[in-house]
């Protein structure tokens, strides 16, 4: 509950401040979004599994965003940025789907 409130506050902050993303950061924004969604679904599932841990949640979120960004950055420098960002999206997308399936089982017992 408190987490959802924090999420809403974050959304409102973003709407209020309307920050401009620097151009060099723009390619990593989609990757960061996917990493963030992965962290959210992982956190919800862990909460439903009864093993939620705030430290793990925050550290996994921050490190996922940074590592995904770093991988894509390295890929950009080596000329395989597009392929590597696809790889990151695929891996994180599979995790999101898996966690969403687990959440569904918890909620609907199906």
């Amino acid at each position, binding site marked *: 509950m408190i987490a959802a409130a924090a999420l809403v506050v974050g959304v409102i902050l973003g709407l209020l401040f309307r920050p401009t993303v620097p151009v060099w950061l723009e390619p990593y924004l989609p990757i960061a979004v996917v990493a963030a969604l992965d962290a959210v679904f992982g956190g919800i599932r862990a909460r439903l599994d009864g093993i939620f841990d*705030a430290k793990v*949640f925050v550290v996994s979120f921050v490190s996922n965003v940074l590592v995904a960004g770093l991988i894509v950055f390295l890929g950009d420098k080596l000329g395989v940025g597009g392929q590597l960002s696809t790889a990151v999206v695929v891996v994180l997308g599979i995790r999101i789907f898996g966690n969403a399936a687990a959440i569904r089982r918890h909620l609907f017992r199906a």
Partner: protein
Amino acid sequence: MAVERSQNTTDPRRPPLLWTTALLDDLLNNPLDPGYQAAADRHAPKRGWESSLAWVGCLLIGFLLVVAYQQTHRSAPARDAARKDLISRIQGLQRAGGTMQDTAKTLAAQVAALRDAQLSAAGSTMLRDLEVASGTVAVHGPGMVVVLNNPSTSNTTDPNQRPGTTPLQQTQVLQDTDIRGVVNQLFAAGAEAIAVNGIRLTATTAIRFAGEAVLVDFQTISAPYTIEAIGPRDAMLVDFADSAVARRLKTVESVLGISFKFNGKSDLTLSSITVSQPRFAAPGTAAASPSPTSTETSR
């Protein structure tokens, strides 16, 4: 079935599948971050700052999501608006330029009419001839038309089909030298008035090349290039068809695929152009030149 298996793999007594070689299997069946399980296994006591940590994490995530949303939905319309604004400004300026040009032509016609009223018939005719040669009045008469166009190859190449992969040398074959060559040849063949894409050539008109565009009288024109010339039609046609310029363009046509056509016209109309009055050049007293038009009107 993957779902059923994943229930087994998330069994708390089982170590996370971090060291198996079946990475994909692990990815599909064990999507939860292993850190949660490890933390739960440690049975660490709950600390007070942990809930605020989760709060901050959720705040960050919400912030990130809304920033990404705004970035995606804001930058595209902004770019589009800037482009539309530029286009409308260019069109507005072009319209303004056209209007001013029309005004200048109207005023010039008025000036010419007033002057004709003052001048004698002979002087008026002489002046009219000079005006025809200098391009300040619209003219019509028999002549010929030369049409040049770049090769109609698409700007994609076979291997990847991405636009813009064909070298410019293959799509932009025609340059200022081609048009200048044609114009010079037509003048040499006896043309009295020439217009390129509707822009009348005067003694001060330059045909230049800038980047990928041909400039005539400092106005950008693009292919197809239509060069209209008024003069002795049949003589010009024969002369032009026999010239080195036409032969060269024929060769380029067969080798690089440009389109090159020319034919005679019984009546062509060429628009006038506003020529600025000479401010520095005064008539000299030097020896008479072979043709008065070439000195008087070249200013």
